[in-house]
């Protein structure tokens, strides 16, 4: 697939074919997009909602699924006082139609040909594109080594927990280190507190392995982690970042 050849992108009609609650504030919507050209792990889609009075709102959502026919999964987190996420979480039902544009993006993407060991670092719902990467990786015969450092507020907020733990248990599965920022469970094998250099050294690869690092999360998270990786000796051009969150209006 070369997405370049498919531009300019058009708005398409996508139909919701499944809804999966992930955590109390997060759900996955699986969309059927007729004519979907396929996507690379890490790409995103834009959704457009139009109200009866013509008011439009657009948001970008990372694709969480691996390339799988015309099915595209997005994972939506509730933004307090948001104007799009509450609609997607509360009002959208299976068989509803949504307007979608994609696949989009050529920078925060991963494909098997990249070859290098993969270090994925996610904050909150920033795990969505990492899931796309890990799901794509799981389809490979000889996947590169991969590790995920995933920061959540508490255990209940860990998205895709069962599937991630299942991946870890599989042969050639990724190594995963969870960290919790707002809960200190009595029994816990992961890390505690915000991602820091100690955690990155514990889970990461030596820079001499030439790893590819992907960082996705809220802006302050991404900036801190990227700076820590550079301080640990990771090459700046091998660190791909994606920030998300409100930009003024949501």
């Amino acid at each position, binding site marked *: 697939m070369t997405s*370049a050849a498919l*531009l300019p992108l058009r708005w398409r009609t996508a139909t919701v074919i499944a809804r999966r609650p992930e955590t109390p504030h997060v759900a996955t919507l699986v969309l059927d997009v007729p004519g979907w050209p396929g996507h690379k792990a890490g790409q995103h889609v834009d959704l457009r909602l139009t109200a009866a009075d013509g008011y439009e*709102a657009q948001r970008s959502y990372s694709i969480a699924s691996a390339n799988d026919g015309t099915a595209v999964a997005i994972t939506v987190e509730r933004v307090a006082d948001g104007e799009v996420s509450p609609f997607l979480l509360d009002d959208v039902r299976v068989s509803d139609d949504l307007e979608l544009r994609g696949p989009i993006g*050529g920078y925060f993407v991963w494909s098997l040909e990249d070859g290098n060991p993969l270090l994925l670092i996610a904050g909150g719902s920033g795990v969505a594109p990492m899931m796309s990467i890990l799901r794509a990786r799981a389809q490979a015969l000889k996947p590169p080594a991969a590790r995920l450092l995933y920061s959540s507020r508490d255990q209940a907020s860990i998205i895709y927990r069962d599937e991630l733990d299942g991946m870890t248990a599989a042969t050639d599965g990724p190594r995963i280190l969870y960290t919790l920022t707002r809960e200190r469970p009595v029994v816990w094998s992961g890390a505690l507190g915000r991602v820091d250099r100690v955690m990155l050294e514990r889970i990461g690869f030596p820079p001499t392995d030439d790893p590819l690092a992907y960082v996705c999360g809220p802006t302050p998270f991404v900036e801190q982690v990227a700076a820590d990786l550079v301080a640990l000796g990771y090459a700046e051009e091998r660190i791909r970042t*994606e920030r998300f969150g*409100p930009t003024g*209006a949501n």
Partner: protein
Amino acid sequence: MTDVVHPLDGNAAAGPLSRLFASDVTGAVVVCGECGREGALATLALYGRGTGLVLRCPTCETVNLRLLDTGRTIHLDLRGCLRMSVRVALD
């Protein structure tokens, strides 16, 4: 709650820019006209969403690119951008 507005990055401008460019330009190298920083468009700081987008240099905060899409007309202002280099796929 704070009133600090955190920018997104240029990744999220890929959709709006795809209305104008024949290739994905989020991987394009942008050279800042002010400080000379070179980096992928995806790494610029993105402000705004919808009709008007502003991409600023993450080092010196100079506006490198403004995109205004009215639906019928797309205005692109590259005043703060010294150069943009796009790698294209071979046919």
